[in-house]
């Protein structure tokens, strides 16, 4: 894999697969939520139609440069996260640009898109955007603490900051997965996963009945299309991150799809049966049990 052009091509192909799997996942999520409610649900190809329609919107307006750049930052964050995420273990074609310190970079990229979005949504000028941004940032800050503590615990446990090496250490059956070998750090990470995917009860940012629909209130047309594209990539990539950290990575695409699906659906199933928290309740939640678990994980690993 000396040839950078070939490497880029494989990465691009991976991005396409992840994007389409993300879109399909969106429609499956909607279908499952609909079935719980007793409905038939949307057609499985509906997200693609929506995307085409959004990119084909004629009338678009901008509230300023930062408004325009918000979705760009967001998708830069999503693609950046993807670029350094090893997808499939043992296959250099699908490990993207993973390197020795990629875990730190991934943490950075996860926050990057959110900040860009915050700036862009703020320029939209709508107060609900501002409320959504402040909610999102304060919740994310508290989610980050148990998440980072859990990651540090794992880094100490495996003595590496490379995701690929972490996956390598988990090979050889379920008994070697982090969720079995280090359950406390895993629990902290799973709690913070609920906050990262932002399904109920932690869907405060988009809360449709309170602040319809938070930061993207003013985004329309292809801005929204970019955001939707990013959401499809981002959700799958984040699920891949948790898969690599806790569930032993994937050896082929089918394994990846099944594992990301199940990981993502932990949050969806919780979301279906819970209403949402208020922001101070959400913050208090993450500063409670998940934080204690995170600290405990650090203490135990020392």
């Amino acid at each position, binding site marked *: 894999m000396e040839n950078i052009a070939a490497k880029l091509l494989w990465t691009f192909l991976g991005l396409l697969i992840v994007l389409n799997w993300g879109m399909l996942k969106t429609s499956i999520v909607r279908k499952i939520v609909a079935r719980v409610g007793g409905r038939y649900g949307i057609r499985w190809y509906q997200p693609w139609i929506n995307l085409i329609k959004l990119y084909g919107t004629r009338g678009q307006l901008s509230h300023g440069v930062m408004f325009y750049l918000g979705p760009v930052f967001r998708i830069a964050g999503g693609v950046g996260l993807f670029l350094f995420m090893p997808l499939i273990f043992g296959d250099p074609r699908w490990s993207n640009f993973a390197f020795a310190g990629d875990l730190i970079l991934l943490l950075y990229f996860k926050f990057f898109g959110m900040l860009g979005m915050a700036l862009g949504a703020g320029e939209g000028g709508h107060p609900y955007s501002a409320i959504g941004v402040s909610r999102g940032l304060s919740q994310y800050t508290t989610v980050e603490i148990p998440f980072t503590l859990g990651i540090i615990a794992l880094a100490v446990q495996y003595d590496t900051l490379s995701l690929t090496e972490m996956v390598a250490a988990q090979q050889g059956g379920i008994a070697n997965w982090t969720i079995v070998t280090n359950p406390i750090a895993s629990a902290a990470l799973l709690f913070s996963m609920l906050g990262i995917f932002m399904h109920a009860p932690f869907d405060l940012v988009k809360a449709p*009945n309170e602040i319809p629909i938070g930061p993207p209130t003013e985004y329309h047309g292809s801005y929204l299309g970019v955001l939707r594209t990013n959401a499809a990539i981002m959700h799958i990539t984040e699920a891949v991150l948790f898969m690599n950290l806790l569930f032993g990575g994937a050896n082929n695409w089918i394994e990846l799809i099944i594992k990301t699906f199940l990981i993502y659906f932990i949050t969806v199933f919780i979301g279906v049966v819970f*209403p*949402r*928290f*208020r922001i101070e*309740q959400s913050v208090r939640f993450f500063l409670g049990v998940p934080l204690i678990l995170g600290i405990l994980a650090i203490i135990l690993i020392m």
Partner: protein
Amino acid sequence: MKNKLFNISPDRSKYPTIGKDGKPEIDLSSGKFVKIWQGPNHPGVTGNMSLELTVSGDEVVDAKTHVGYLHRGFEKLFERRKYIQCFPTSIRMCVPEADSNEYCLAVGTEKLAGIDVPDRAKWLRMLTLEMSRLQMLLRIVPGQGGTMGLGIGVQWGMYLRDLILDRFEELTGGRIYHMYILPGGVRGGLPEGFETRLEENLKDIEKFVHRIDNVLYQNAVFRKRAMGVGYLDPSWVDEYGVVGSNARAAGFKRDVRKDNPYLFYEQLDWEVPIKTESDIYTRARIRWYDLQVTIDLIRQILAKIPKTGDVRAKTPNVMHWKIPAGQTYVKSESSRGEFGFFMVSDGTDKPRRINLRGPSYTHAVPLLERMLINTNIADVGALMVSLQTCPPEIER
């Protein structure tokens, strides 16, 4: 807020400071406050109305409700219409629960004209009123969860509501607007096999009652969000004229069906559920009990409806029916509380004045403006639904 050790939120009950004129002292130019207009196309606002909120951080410090988006001038239109022509118009006054309108208008007309209604018609009227209350409660009980993002209860409830609307369609021919109750009686008897089909639906609804208890009322997050929030002080009940389930949740036994029994409600065996906590959770819980009571009442009514007999007393030609002069006030219990019509007749074939007093008139304007102060902005929608505000009956 039982656990004081971890209670980090400051006591804000004295905030904002109240000025000499009784209004909160708010200086918008200080930059500490933001004005937020919620509605009319805000999905959290019930129906078509809007709120003007002044917020400090996440907290509402001053609120005004703006209504009139649905004002059609019904009370003016009634002056131009004959009594029978008022019926199709009147049912549009409160859209979600239309039968209370036609019942009150019919009874008011009968009172003024001095007509006696056959017994069978009275039982049928009770049946439609209770079915109408049932379909409204099926909307509002899970709707309380819907305001907080719990959508599945709403889906189940709306499906069952559609079943009740099917029964209405069988009985009256209309889904939402029935025009079934007319002066002198009702438009027709029960169709063949109606009772068994309704009984099947009631069985489904009973299952739903237990499911929604598990999903909503036992839900940890819902309890956390709804308990202790949106407190309605019992002293406000008289001060603001609170009626119905909101008053019942504050410990007042207010139910027109018990207080001033109309139709044959005296012959039925039931109890008015009362609680005293008076927060969003309690009000939602009271509606859940109401739902069970309503199912029970419909069963009792179905068992007692006479199979034969007149459904409508003989009236003169309604197109030139002169009602004797007089004034009256008719009230009935809707799912939201006391629902009254004030009627004035001047001896002609058109009413002089018909005034609707809906419970939302006080619940959604003065009471809501008071209750929104010191509320978190996330709870505004939940509070509105828990007060069961219904804009069309405010504006008419």
